[in-house]
């Protein structure tokens, strides 16, 4: 809502300076977004003296003027008939922005350079005279801006209104609040009663077929008017709040809407078939052209204003081209109605139309203000258009407005707010904004809200009025009495916190990507048709095609981030993310939300330095991170099994493993396949892991039992076996671990070797087995015997050989 102080002063005296006023409005809930001076654009327009006038060589009607603006003299091409030597006139310099938004540039007119523009009143928005350039009279210093020379200043305040305050979508509404905070009187415009009574019923009628959509419709008629430009005072009022003057009829309806908040519409009475109004919903598919020239297909739930035959306006939104006020209009029917806010909002949304009128109707206009606004309009139209008001008015009101009384407890209000205001103070506050008060007893007031306060229906609404007008900042801060009881922090929170800590400890930085994905992300990840991650949840109104569905994997987000990092020359990237993926259960069900953790490692294991050469990261780096992560959660035993080639969708076959705990797959680790890299415009290898947080959390021991430390020393023995190249080392490790021999404490694989002298198709694996007894120091003999037994069993089980 935009208000100019010049207009606001018609209703309330303004005693405060503009900054104080703006701040005070903000502090009662009418947040001021900006304060500007509407004449600021005239700073670039100077007082100039027309020093000489000579004819334009190439155009009969144009003249070339030398205009003195203090220090310099400008050459200006001008076509005004009244330009005379010695006259003081406003000259706009290049860069001037006019009221209509256009910016003046230095130009060449018919071959002659024009260094500025001599302006008429209307061009500067200072009057209605368009007949010639403005004569400033005498006594102004040359070169001064006309803003200073003429003392032009008018503050324009833009208020960012919350949707609950449609009453303030009007000058009077804002003036009422200003009056309350300044403790000043509010003056309503005077509307003299109509002179004649009675004959409107013979000239027109209003039928409301759909009272739910339109509880009230009033009509007035003004006859014998002449359509023409409005007087300057009216144009100036409209321009001061950013509206464009059109003609005396339309300008009045806009003026009264801005003044009262009630939108109005003027029809050309003679263009209405049967000269009457029918309010009904549209016929399905009915065509309609609105005032802005756009054609609409109507649907059956849209409320239309119709004449005897056809729609002539979309109720509460915009009139129709077919009944528009035009130069030949002599009789005007003025509409002032109360429409159902939901109906207007739905239609405006469906048609994609938002107007000053629909904005007000959607939020709720004053249900009791319709007739008053209509009378005000009729009076002004008759005055400005030189016509007569037909006697009386039509007031179709099938559903009368019913206000209620709110019982309001002073004590409870003080208890909820934490204040200590007395009954009279509260009553005074409410009265200052036109609430009527009746005292029931010491504690209770009976309050009737004014009809324009559509947001007030409960005692709590009144509490807010008391609080905001007595000042939120005057309410003392207190501490609530909180019982000393608490719940343990949810396990998921502690788990997630630890997960992040561990990953950061491994050198990974946390990423947060959008939860959105491209519709084709399933294809980009090469997922099979029946993969659950193909069941994406689509957004009906996505911002971009890349964000059209909810993600079903964290990997695309990490690969996107990788691409961006590479583009910005970050050569080593270690990122992880903890976040949800969304698997659809159908459009009308909430999806399955699964929290995942994923990591990505790209570039080097360690950066090159004077201590060590740069080394690229590989599968075992990423696997090591996962192993360490699981160890960090004390997961007793995880397995990594080779992922079958058929299951390798976005990871490279032969370079991917599934992560299992207790035989359940909880995630994967591997190298991103070259195909998937390519679909993300990447080339060099990248390694990822992805784990279901819930699955991991459920398999994380919640309690830790400390073990006693060993009392006796351990003894280690090594063994090297030559086995088939494709044998998974974990099978030998498991075999040793699962041996019945209780003295085996641990086993460690410390070397893997292929190539000469190991035969083709074979590899050598070296293990260190640690033996320890909990009751004695082991004798060498004893250890040698056990080690020999174990070695022999391994040789047998895996058809292994000892190195030659």
């Amino acid at each position, binding site marked *: 809502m935009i208000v100019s102080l010049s207009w606001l002063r018609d209703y309330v005296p303004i005693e405060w300076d503009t900054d104080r006023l703006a701040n005070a409005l903000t502090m009662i809930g009418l947040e001021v977004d900006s304060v500007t001076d509407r004449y600021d654009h005239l700073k670039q327009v100077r007082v100039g003296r027309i020093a000489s006038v000579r004819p334009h060589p190439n155009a009969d009607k144009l003249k070339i003027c030398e205009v003195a603006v203090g220090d310099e003299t400008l050459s200006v091409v001008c076509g005004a008939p009244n330009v005379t030597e010695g006259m003081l006139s406003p000259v706009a310099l290049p860069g001037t922005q006019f009221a209509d938004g256009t910016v003046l540039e230095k130009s060449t007119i018919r071959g002659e350079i024009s260094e500025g523009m001599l302006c008429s009143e209307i061009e500067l928005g200072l009057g209605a005279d368009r007949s010639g350039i403005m004569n400033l009279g005498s006594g102004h210093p040359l070169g001064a801006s006309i803003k200073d020379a003429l003392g032009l200043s008018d503050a324009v305040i833009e208020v960012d209104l*919350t*949707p609950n305050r449609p009453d303030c979508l009007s000058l009077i509404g804002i003036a009422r609040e200003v009056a309350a905070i300044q403790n000043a009187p509010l003056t309503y415009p005077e509307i003299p009663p109509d002179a004649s009574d009675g004959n409107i019923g013979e000239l027109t009628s209003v039928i409301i077929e759909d009272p739910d959509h339109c509880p009230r419709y009033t009509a007035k008629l003004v006859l014998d008017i002449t359509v023409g430009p409005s007087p300057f005072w009216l144009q100036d009022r409209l321009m001061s709040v950013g509206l464009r003057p059109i003609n005396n009829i339309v300008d009045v309806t806009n003026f009264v809407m801005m003044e009262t908040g009630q939108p109005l519409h003027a029809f050309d009475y003679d263009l209405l078939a049967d000269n009457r109004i029918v309010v009904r919903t549209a016929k399905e598919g009915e065509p309609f052209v609105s005032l802005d020239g756009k054609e609409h297909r109507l649907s059956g739930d849209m409320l239309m204003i119709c004449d005897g035959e056809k729609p002539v306006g979309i109720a509460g939104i915009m009139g129709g081209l077919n009944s528009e006020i035009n130069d030949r209009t002599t009789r005007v029917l003025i509409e002032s109605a109360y429409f159902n806010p939901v109906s207007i909002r739905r239609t405006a949304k469906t048609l994609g139309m938002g107007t000053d009128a629909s904005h007000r109707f959607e939020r709720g206009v004053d249900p009791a203000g319709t007739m008053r606004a209509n009378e005000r309009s009729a009076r002004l139209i008759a005055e400005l258009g030189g016509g007569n008001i037909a006697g009386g008015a039509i007031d179709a009101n099938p559903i009368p407005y019913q206000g209620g009384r709110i019982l309001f407890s002073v004590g409870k209000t003080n208890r*909820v707010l934490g204040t200590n205001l007395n009954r009279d103070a509260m009553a005074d506050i409410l009265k200052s904004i036109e609430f009527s008060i009746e005292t029931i007893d010491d504690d209770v007031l009976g309050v009737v809200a004014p009809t324009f306060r559509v947001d007030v229906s409960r005692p*709590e609404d009144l509490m807010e009025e008391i609080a905001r007008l007595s000042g939120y900042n005057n309410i003392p801060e207190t501490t609530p009495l909180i019982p000393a009881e608490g719940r343990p922090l949810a396990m998921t929170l502690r788990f997630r916190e630890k997960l992040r800590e561990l990953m*950061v400890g491994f050198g990974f*930085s946390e990423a*947060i990507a959008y939860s959105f994905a491209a519709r084709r992300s399933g294809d980009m990840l090469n997922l099979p048709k029946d993969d659950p991650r193909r069941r994406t949840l689509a957004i009906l109104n996505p911002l971009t095609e890349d964000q059209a569905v909810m993600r079903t994997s964290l990997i695309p987000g990490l690969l996107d981030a990788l691409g961006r990092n590479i583009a*910005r020359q970050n050569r080593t990237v270690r990122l992880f993310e903890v976040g949800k993926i969304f698997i659809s259960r159908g459009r009308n069900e909430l*999806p399955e939300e699964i929290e995942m953790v994923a990591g990505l490692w790209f570039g080097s294991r360690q950066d090159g330095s004077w201590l060590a050469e740069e080394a690229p990261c590989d599968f075992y780096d990423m696997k090591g991170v996962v192993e360490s992560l699981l160890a960090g959660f004390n997961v007793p035993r995880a397995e990594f099994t080779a992922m079958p080639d058929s299951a390798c969708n976005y990871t490279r076959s032969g370079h991917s493993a599934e992560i299992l705990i207790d035989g359940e797959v909880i995630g994967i680790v591997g190298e991103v396949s070259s195909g998937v890299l390519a679909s993300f415009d990447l080339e060099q290898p990248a390694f990822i892991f992805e784990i279901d947080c819930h699955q991991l959390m459920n398999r994380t021991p919640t309690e830790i039992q400390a073990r006693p430390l060993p009392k006796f020393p351990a003894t280690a023995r090594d063994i090297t076996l030559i086995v088939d190249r494709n044998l998974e080392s974990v099978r030998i490790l498991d075999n040793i671990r699962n041996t019945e021999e209780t003295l085996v404490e641990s086993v460690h694989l410390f070397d893997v070797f292929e190539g000469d002298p190991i035969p083709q198709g074979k590899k050598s694996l070296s293990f260190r087995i640690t033996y320890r007894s909990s009751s004695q120091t082991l004798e060498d003999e004893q250890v040698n015997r056990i080690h020999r037994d174990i070695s022999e069993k391994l040789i047998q089980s895996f058809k292994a050989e000892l190195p030659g």
Partner: protein
Amino acid sequence: MEQTIEEIYEEAVRDIDAAADEGRIQELAVIYLGRKGKVTRYLRNISQLPAQQRPEAGKRANQVKQALNQTFRDAEERLGSAASTDERLDVSLPGRIPARGRLHPVTQINQEICDIFVRLGFDIAEGPEVEKDWYNFEALNFPKEHPARDMQDTFFISDDIVLRTHTSPLQIRIMEKQAPPVRVIAPGKVYRCDSDLTHTPMFHQVEGLLVDRNVTFGNLKGILTTFVHQMFDEQTSLRFRPSFFPFTEPSAEVDILCVMCRGSGCRVCSSTGWLEVLGSGMVHPAVFENVGYDSTQYTGFAFGMGVERIAMLKYGIDDIRRFFENDYRFLAQF
């Protein structure tokens, strides 16, 4: 006497100068100053000199002994340190840096916010990011087709399912499950279809709710003032100003004095000197009715804040989109 003390001294200095290492110095020390060393022997022989020469000779010999001691110490130091030059470290060389990751700034600020409220006795709850219209709007007193819904640009999955536009649905989910008193915060991701310098289609909020008997608007001010003072600093001024949220009445927007310009007006605060950081209010009775709480017995307050907004103010970040680009150079700063 074979040698004068002067001769012994000169010879010793020559030998020390010629010594190549610490070992030789030690040998020389024995030769000259040892129990049977030349200086020691000279001193012992002084008793054989004529009596009138003895004091002068003794004094001179002791001076020489002291001077040699010093010379040996200097030589030892010189040769000793020269010997270990090979083992010296250039301590200015960079060390082996262990890999170190960083928590996302949003996570860090989120944790800081949660920690403050946990210290004030609040629990933490979480809920779904894809929500039913009922939880996101209807139960929070946003009727269908109400202009208040325009305050939040909503991503729709269907007529009835949306990406939650705020963390406020947690208020309903918590109160549905738990009888009063309630004292909880709910952090999480929220979604709005909006994208520019100060808006991203996804961001993070922390919701708060306190319901009990005798909870007042003054309590709301007290808790949020405590929060702001801990999050920013004790000197940060706040102002509470009336606003509108369908699920609170009275509603208040909480502004803090601009942390950039300290109130004098700058680009960050749009020259107002104040920054909006929290929305809040007393729980609307309609919300209590929707979850079956008795609004004649209980009152409460709710509040919500944007985590990115606070992170931007604390870290001086001017483009919210930076948070979701995951650029290493950005992440490494926090």
